[in-house]
């Protein structure tokens, strides 16, 4: 459903510091896959997500989504069918608005933002039951400003919000990295449950090798703008953290880290 074809991406273009991250990079994701992507810093994981979401434009190549070329589509238009949860829990919600207002806005995604009432009271019960699935006590704090929530709660809310309207692709951009071990575990379980329930196609970048092994249907390792490991099915099920670390270390030694 998602296909990156011959993507090139350079940074600091036209300066002496010009670096080429992607040079004819190709990658594809099938419908219903839950892909975990690991790799060292600078391997191109996040850049790949930014290219898919439209935060960056590629210097060359095409991005096809269900056969349609979306390479030139602005980020906000791609957001109609691509949802994203960021590493920073602050990025997925608005601090100065209440939980209720955040959810009401998200509920109205892909519809007109006109002069009707911002919060539809009839939907409150639905919001509450969505929050109950997070099991973080947010269902009783609808009038609380999101800025007062903990990082874990905010990230759970961001995850729920991203999934409130029907999506075709969910992008998880190191979304557990900024949380403490316990919260990060809970968010990962919540993510897995949401993805299983909706059967949505998902692409998750993570530094947590255990999450990459335990969750998802396909495992990809990137290095210097290339895919160096790609396991799915039984191959993925048999993979262990140690295997991954071995590959990881050999790459790191090669590049002198």
């Amino acid at each position, binding site marked *: 459903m998602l296909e990156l074809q011959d993507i090139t991406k350079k940074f600091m273009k036209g300066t002496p510091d010009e670096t080429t991250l992607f040079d004819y990079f190709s990658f594809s994701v099938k419908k219903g896959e839950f892909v975990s992507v690991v790799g060292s810093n600078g391997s191109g994981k996040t850049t790949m997500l930014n290219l898919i979401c439209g935060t960056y434009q590629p210097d060359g190549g095409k991005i096809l989504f269900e056969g349609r070329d979306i390479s030139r589509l*602005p*980020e*906000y*238009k791609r*957001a*109609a069918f691509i*949802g*994203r949860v*960021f590493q920073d829990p*602050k*990025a*997925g*919600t*608005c*601090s*100065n*608005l209440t939980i209720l*207002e955040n959810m*009401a*806005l*998200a509920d*109205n*995604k*892909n519809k*007109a*933002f*006109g*002069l*009707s*009432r*911002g*919060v539809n009271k009839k939907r409150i019960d639905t919001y509450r039951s969505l929050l109950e699935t997070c099991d973080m006590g947010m269902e009783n704090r609808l009038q609380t400003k999101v800025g007062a929530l903990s990082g874990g709660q905010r990230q759970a809310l961001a995850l729920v919000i*991203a999934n409130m309207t029907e999506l075709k692709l969910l992008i998880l951009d190191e979304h557990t990295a900024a949380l403490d071990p316990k919260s990060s575990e809970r968010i990962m379980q919540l993510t897995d449950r949401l993805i299983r329930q909706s059967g949505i196609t998902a692409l998750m970048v993570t530094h947590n090798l255990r999450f990459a092994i335990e969750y998802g249907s396909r495992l990809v390792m990137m290095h210097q703008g290339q895919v160096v490991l790609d396991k799915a099915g039984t191959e993925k099920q048999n993979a262990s953290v140690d295997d991954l670390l071995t590959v990881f270390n050999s790459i790191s030694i090669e590049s002198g880290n």
Partner: protein
Amino acid sequence: MAILSSLEVCLEDGFVYAILAMGFYITFSILDFPDLSVEGTVLTGGVTCAVLAEMGVSPYLSMIVAFLVGCLAGSVTGILHVKLGIRPLLSGILVSTGLITVNLVAAVVGNGGSFSGDGALSNVTIARGSPTIFRVFPFTLLPETVAQVNLRKLLSFFVIALIVKLLLDVYLKTKSGLLLFATGDNAQFTTMLARNPGSSKILGLALGNGLAALSGALIAQSRGNANQGMGLGMVVIGIASVIIGLSVFGKLRFMKPTTMVIFGSVIYQACLGVASILGVPSAYNKLIMALLFTAALVLSGRLGRKKQEA
């Protein structure tokens, strides 16, 4: 008696500039955009209203037109920033500079003169018989003065500021209004709602400048003219009122921010009023305004820091 008339002036000015300050509440406080174009749009609103009044147009219609002209100017600022990538401060300076000529031409042509392009001043006088809100229904129902206080002017400013406040309160609770908050708070969030945060910013700037022009229209009607002096110091008045209002009353949960801004505006004008009662010549007003603004900024900074420490 001097104190009573000073009180009248500071309430009048407080209400009329509260409309401007509510505009800044949208741009400065919600969108976090320091909008300097207002330095031009207040006079644009004044000139628009004065010219239309001289043509015999109903003052309420003139005020609506002034508001719309202000919206147009504000959206130019927004487009310069959003579409052309010019920084907020510079976009505002560009628009307010351009508006100097626009105001000039509008004033000269509106006065029935032909525009030679040299030595002209934007000064439109509203003649004694021309329609203003003080001379048509419904405010004519009020006595013009009571105990030497210009009650009609005072109450009409109050009522109009109140109507603007109530409309703004309703708007800010709509989907479009909430999206404005979201854009100012976290533009990425707006993007994720599949909305262009740029459009939301342009809309906010249009509204902010529309309100600035509306307040200019009221000032012109009250003074009986719109002249070049009107635009000066408007950014300081507006932003200082917002900051004073929000930092003094910010802790009160039951009070709406728009109400805080109106109080902020009245407090700000009261400070100027006190200076005049103490016999400070009006030439010092702009300096006092700058000092008050500095004080407001420092005060709000202190409060902000305290909150973070707590």
